[in-house]
């Protein structure tokens, strides 16, 4: 006997199910069978039933729900069918057990073989043409990639078996029994190739298809109660759509058993009317002939309720018409309740006419609210605040009474986690939100590793991909890599010139096998050699050791080498085509070689193996009909058809998709889940998140191969229709409040965006049902427009965004908002970087190197030494493509390294060879020209330097300690000092590949003074040689800075050196307490212009501006240096720089008091002594 139960709400259906189950079965140990559409429903239903079964009172706390099996309808029907045919089989619990070789996962493999064997058959001509045009294999010699197509066809055949079994039965009859229904032109051709292909597949599989089996199975089910081993009572809960073939099986089962179907139907009134329209219905009609299509009066029932309405027609077509109604009490007289009541009654809106019969509402009553936000993140924030308001207003409301449903959970999941879990940090009440329905890729990091491996296999194996892979949690765990190690790895990859490709062989796929530069292998060789030999730039067997690897890092190099080696092997193995089982094994083994789960999560590895093994074909049909060629022979030896990585990727993509699961659904916390059928179990608060135009509803299915779409029948699945039904279910499931958020404005352009069509329909329905005071529309009253920013003052103005109090709960943004309001429209004067000077740093000896760094860049030295702050982008970034041209900075670095190699007495040719081994140059011949140019410039510079009197190459480093009055001292070393064997005088030498600039002169000056103060007897002088402005390879020009001895004898030299060094140390001490307004080149230009006689040159301002903000866009200018922007707050104009006046202690002897600005006075303080003593020359 078949019993139908219907209700508009799932909790009343659950109560009805409880009443049914409360009757004890004859055998108390036999499990009840309750079929459920999703695992979430299973959990909810078990919770509901445990309040009813065996409870001392209704909804009592002491009930129990046990000994129930919960198969999906498809599994139940499939197991029934197979059991009926094989007599007395137990119902299977999982899809895989019951499913035969016809499930798409398995049928796809014989289908691939069929395609391979028969592609040239005449009836398959359109398929062959399509495959060859759309799926040609990128690899030469291989056939078309047919897997994705085969999978698509296998899915189609599966759907036909469920929804159009008659059609398949006709196909099974042979080509002569052509379809009566699909004879229309345009589809005949499709029927032809599909039926031909299906018959081939049927022959290859050799087992009757489910459609064929069903006939016989139904007969047996009707014939005998013992055909299946099922209890005398079977229930199907929460159906919103039931394919006709399933229904037939259930009807047959009902011959000897009590079968209860529990249907969610929004409107009892509509049901009654539709029941009349369906009277005398023979067979399932086409959608165009649906007798109930125009019955619905209520606009929401009409537009949103098609699935539920059609299910009634499907049932009626099988003769199931009598349904017991479980009434829902009348909803409260709120706005939401009114809408729900109208849906229950399917009442048309009051007629338009002279008299306005709509119910009057004063305004929003809080039961239905729409929030228009900017972008996704704000939607999540607004949802959180809305829920908090509801929780605050009603002490009986608990987080578990709230459900948040979202059409696209993968996009929103990270935001939900971020916004809800960090709420506590911003001063708002923290809330736990449980995310259900995430994809396994998200919940199982090991699977994510396997998926990542496959992604790598299809790519170029770039340096950043390697870095990304290494930073995956399980990979880091396997190789013991922490955050610092990854930072080190990034530096090494950049420094050893790794760009892309495992090795040269790997690059052959791109026909670049002749370029070994910048592969993982090349970089690894350098690193490993760097551990073995710490020799400076000397090639060993053609490899340049990586410099700068400390002995504490040897271990890390070893681990990195192991990681790169293993990954290389795995990637090498995955090249080319393999059978599915091999792919699965390689991915699983690869993931285990390269990653390991945490101790508590060892299940992740098992799940990985399980998921991967499910993609491999289970059975292979031994028949081989086609001609045997070499490729076919290979496939026979292998475990099935060979597929390449792209086909494997599409094979896996499906397995890694998110599915509704039981996990995290209704755990006691607030649930966040996808919008899927029967998720809409009643909750007091239902939030719909992300109802954006273009995302919701899904587009109607478009598939030119789907014969069902040619003539859709009542009850066929359709994404857009299903989404709308979900919306109707959600509307009815909200017992107290419905909160909807959508993207009402573009977050970048602030353009208004219309809500998605169903939401617009909802607003229209409200407008036709009620009227608001003041003639306002639903859009005016119900939609709250939220500001772009969380710190906008409107968030905290009482009543501005709805509730009487402020909208937001957190204090962090409140402070920000208050600051903004206080500042008002007027722009406050920029606050100084520091309110005053810092306390002096301990006055020990001054490190000469530190002093030099300070003089070269005062702001940077201050930020680093006192604040430990390094603004600006990191310099070591990996790059993923081979360098074809040297950038100017890279060219400079090459020249600088060559020059210093020669300066240190090494051979230029050896240095050039080392440069080639470094891996930073363009590959092969492309390096030749720039290298030749740079080395020519180096040679020319060496020649020029040799012509400078006193310049020589025989120089040594010297340690020094210079005593200053007052107990201060300067200590350190100067790198290159030449002592004249005849006179005994010392010369400080420096040769730089750069253009001689202010910083080189300052460095020489400080070292020169320190040398003079420490060793006055040596009567030191200093020579610095660099390139000159306008120097070309053809006409090289050098610029020389020369400091002669500071006095006629050692005493004078010491006195003057100590005095001038004292000035530098004084500036240094000041500069360690605040960022001094000294900017290296700008200050130099200013000071030089000031020292010129009046009227010479363009004047200090113009001269300084050339370095501060040059008119030539190619040069950055010091105004744009990150450190200067940090301490000045912005890119400051030179005029603004000149506004500050000298401090009280910046005057007196030694200070140029003609300088009225602080910048000028400090610049002169630094530069005047230097300029007074320096000789500059061009050569």
């Amino acid at each position, binding site marked *: 006997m078949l019993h139908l139960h219907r209700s508009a709400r799932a909790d009343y259906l659950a109560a009805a199910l409880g009443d049914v189950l409360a009757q004890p079965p004859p055998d108390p140990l036999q499990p009840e069978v309750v079929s459920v559409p999703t695992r979430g429903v299973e959990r909810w239903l078990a919770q509901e039933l445990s309040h009813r079964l065996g409870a001392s009172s209704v909804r009592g706390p002491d009930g129990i729900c046990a000994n129930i099996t919960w198969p999906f309808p498809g599994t139940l029907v499939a197991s029934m069918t197979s059991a009926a045919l094989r007599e007395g089989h137990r119902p299977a619990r999982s899809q895989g057990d019951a499913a035969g070789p016809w499930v798409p996962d398995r049928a796809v493999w014989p289908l691939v073989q069929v395609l391979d064997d028969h592609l040239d058959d005449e009836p398959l001509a359109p398929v062959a043409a399509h495959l060859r045009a759309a799926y040609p294999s990128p690899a030469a010699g291989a056939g078309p990639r047919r897997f994705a197509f085969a999978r698509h066809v296998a899915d189609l055949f599966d759907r036909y078996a469920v929804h159009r079994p008659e059609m398949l039965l006709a196909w099974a009859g042979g080509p002569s029994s052509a379809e009566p229904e699909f004879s229309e032109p345009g589809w005949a051709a499709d029927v032809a190739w599909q039926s031909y292909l299906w018959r081939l597949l049927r022959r290859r599989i050799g087992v009757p298809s489910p459609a064929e089996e069903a006939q016989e199975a139904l007969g047996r089910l009707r014939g005998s109660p013992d055909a299946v081993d099922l209890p005398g009572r079977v229930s199907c809960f929460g159906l919103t759509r039931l394919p006709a073939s399933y229904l037939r099986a259930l009807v047959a089962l009902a011959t000897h058993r009590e079968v209860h179907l529990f249907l969610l139907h929004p409107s009892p009134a509509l049901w009654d009317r539709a029941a009349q329209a369906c009277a005398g219905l023979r067979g399932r009609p086409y959608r165009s002939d649906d007798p109930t299509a125009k019955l619905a009066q209520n606009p929401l029932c009409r537009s949103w309720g098609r699935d539920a309405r059609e299910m009634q027609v499907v049932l009626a077509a099988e003769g199931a018409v009598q349904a017991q109604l479980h009434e829902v009490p009348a909803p409260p007289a709120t706005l939401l309740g009114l809408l729900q009541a109208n849906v229950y009654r399917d009442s048309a809106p009051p007629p*338009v006419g002279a008299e306005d019969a709509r119910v009057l509402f004063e305004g929003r009553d809080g039961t239905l609210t729409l929030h228009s936000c900017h972008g996704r993140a704000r939607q999540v924030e607004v949802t959180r605040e809305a829920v908090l308001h509801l929780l605050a207003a009603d002490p009986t409301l608990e987080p578990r009474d709230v459900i948040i449903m979202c059409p696209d959970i993968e996009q929103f999941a990270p935001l939900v986690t971020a916004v809800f879990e960090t709420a506590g940090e911003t001063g708002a009440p923290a809330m736990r939100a449980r995310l259900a329905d995430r994809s396994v890729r998200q919940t199982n990091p090991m699977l994510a590793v396997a998926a990542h491996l496959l992604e790598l296999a299809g790519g170029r194996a770039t340096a950043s991909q390697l870095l990304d892979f290494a930073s995956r949690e399980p990979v880091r765990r396997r190789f013991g890599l922490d955050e610092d190690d990854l930072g080190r790895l990034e530096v090494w990859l950049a420094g050893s010139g790794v760009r892309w490709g495992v090795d040269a062989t790997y690059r052959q796929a791109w026909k670049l096998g002749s370029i070994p530069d910048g592969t993982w292998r090349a970089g690894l060789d350098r690193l490993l050699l760097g551990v073995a030999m710490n020799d400076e730039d000397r090639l060993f067997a053609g490899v340049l050791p990586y410099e700068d690897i400390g002995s504490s890092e040897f271990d890390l190099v070893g681990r990195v080498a192991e990681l790169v080696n293993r990954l290389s092997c795995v990637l090498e193995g995955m090249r080319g085509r393999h059978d599915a089982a091999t792919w699965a094994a390689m991915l699983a083994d690869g993931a285990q070689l390269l990653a390991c789960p945490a101790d508590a999560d060892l299940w992740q590895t098992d799940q990985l193996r399980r998921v991967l093994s499910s993609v491999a074909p289970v059975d292979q049909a031994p028949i081989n009909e086609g001609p045997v060629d070499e490729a076919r022979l290979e496939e026979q030896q292998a475990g099935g058809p060979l597929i390449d990585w792209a086909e494997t990727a599409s094979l896996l993509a499906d397995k890694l998709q998110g599915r509704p699961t039981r996990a995290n659904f209704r755990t006691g916390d607030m649930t966040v889940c996808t919008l899927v059928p029967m998720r809409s179990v009643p909750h007091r608060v239902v939030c719909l998140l992300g109802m954006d135009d*273009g995302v919701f509803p899904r587009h109607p299915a478009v598939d030119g191969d789907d014969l069902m779409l040619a003539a859709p029948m009542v009850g066929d699945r359709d994404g857009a229709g299903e989404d709308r039904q979900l919306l109707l279910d959600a509307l009815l499931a909200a017992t107290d409040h419905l909160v909807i958020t959508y993207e009402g404005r573009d977050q970048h352009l602030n353009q208004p*965006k*219309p809500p998605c069509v169903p939401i617009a329909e909802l607003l229209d329905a409200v407008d036709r049902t009620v009227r608001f005071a003041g003639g306002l529309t639903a859009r005016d009253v119900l939609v709250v427009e939220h500001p772009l920013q969380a710190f906008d003052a409107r968030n905290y103005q009482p009543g501005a965004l709805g509730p009487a109090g402020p909208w937001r709960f957190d204090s962090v943004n409140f402070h920000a908002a208050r600051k903004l309001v206080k500042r008002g429209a007027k722009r406050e004067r920029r606050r100084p970087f520091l309110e005053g000077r810092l306390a002096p740093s301990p006055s020990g000896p001054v490190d000469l190197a530190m002093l030099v760094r300070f003089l070269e860049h005062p702001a940077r030295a201050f930020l680093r030494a006192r604040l430990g702050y390094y603004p600006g982008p990191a310099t070591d970034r990996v790059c993923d493509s081979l360098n*074809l*041209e040297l950038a100017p900075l890279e060219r400079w670095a090459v020249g600088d390294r060559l020059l210093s190699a020669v300066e240190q007495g090494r051979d230029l040719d050896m240095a050039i060879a080392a440069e080639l081994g470094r891996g930073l140059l363009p590959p092969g011949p492309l390096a030749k020209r720039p290298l030749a140019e740079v080395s020519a410039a180096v040679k020319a510079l060496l020649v020029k330097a040799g012509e400078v009197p006193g310049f020589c190459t025989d120089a040594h480093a010297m340690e020094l300690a210079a005593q200053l009055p007052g107990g201060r001292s300067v200590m350190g070393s100067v790198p290159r000092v030449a002592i004249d064997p005849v006179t005994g005088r010392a010369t400080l030498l420096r040769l730089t590949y750069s253009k001689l600039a202010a910083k080189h002169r300052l460095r020489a000056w400080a070292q020169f003074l320190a040398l003079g103060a420490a060793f006055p007897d040596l009567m030191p002088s200093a020579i610095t040689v660099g390139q000159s402005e306008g120097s070309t390879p053809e006409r090289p020009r050098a610029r020389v800075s020369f400091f002669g001895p500071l006095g006629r004898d050692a005493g004078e030299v010491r006195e003057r050196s100590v005095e001038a060094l004292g000035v530098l140390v004084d500036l240094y001490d000041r500069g360690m307490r605040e960022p001094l307004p000294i900017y290296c080149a700008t200050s130099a230009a200013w000071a030089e212009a000031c020292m010129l006689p009046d009227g010479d040159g363009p004047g200090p301002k113009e001269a300084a501006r050339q370095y501060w903000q040059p008119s030539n866009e190619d040069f950055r200018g010091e105004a744009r240096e990150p450190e200067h922007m940090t301490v000045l707050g912005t890119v400051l104009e030179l005029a603004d720089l000149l506004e500050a006046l000298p401090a009280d202690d910046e005057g007196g002897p030694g200070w140029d008091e003609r300088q009225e600005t602080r910048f000028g006075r400090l610049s002169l303080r630094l530069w005047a002594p230097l300029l007074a003593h320096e000789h500059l020359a061009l050569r």
Partner: protein
Amino acid sequence: MSQTRPNFDLTGPMPGPGVTVLEASAGTGKTYTLAGIVTRLLAEGTCRTGALLVVTFTRSATGELRDRVRGRLLSTYRDLEWSLATGEAPQERLARFLVGTAGDRAGVHRRWSRLSEALADFDRATITTTHGFCHMVLAALGVWGEVAHGASLLEAPEDLVREVCDDLYARWVVMNGPLPFRPGHARTVAGAAIAHPGLEVLPATGNAQLSDDVLRSRLASGARKEMDRRLLDANLLTYDALIYRLAAALEHHERGKEAVARLQERFETVLVDEFQD
């Protein structure tokens, strides 16, 4: 010229069959007229909701157009409803026209109920961008089209173009010695060739001498081929490829007819907004 073209009247005879161009300056209400045409076609029953195609150019324009068309359907629907209830003619011009030409009250009711269905069935009307349309049509063609299942769109192909070009450049230099132009120039040439797959690359590279132009031309055709190969390998499509694939499918000498028939069967009326873009 403009004298020879008639002024369009929303309440006059509807255009077609064939192609009709509506030309107007900015702000004169092209989109308004378009929404009106849709409303009239649906109300008069000339076109089914599912067989209607409206194409515009950007995604944001699509959203706005959808909202406008629905708004117009709704207001006309209400006007007709009001007219049915009161027996008076509506104020709005199109609604008044629809009431006036309906014949009797039953005719007005028929039109009203068609609009009501169109509103309930609004998702079936295709309002989309050019690229969305191409994507949809290629899917709708099934085996008669030439796009693989599961191919995804590469929205910004610039990186791939650069990669292809750099590879070709490096390969040439390593095998044959320096090229007479720099990598930046090579990228410009290859990028242009890839962006305009319909244009012929000149000069033809037979056994010609390796002049600069011939080298450039070789690079350009090589980059096109290589780009196609890599897109195929990664199962990717670019927007340009989408449009060219559709054109190729429709012009195919054997299968094109079947494909065209499919499209014609599916769409009765096509409206294109902002065609000048």
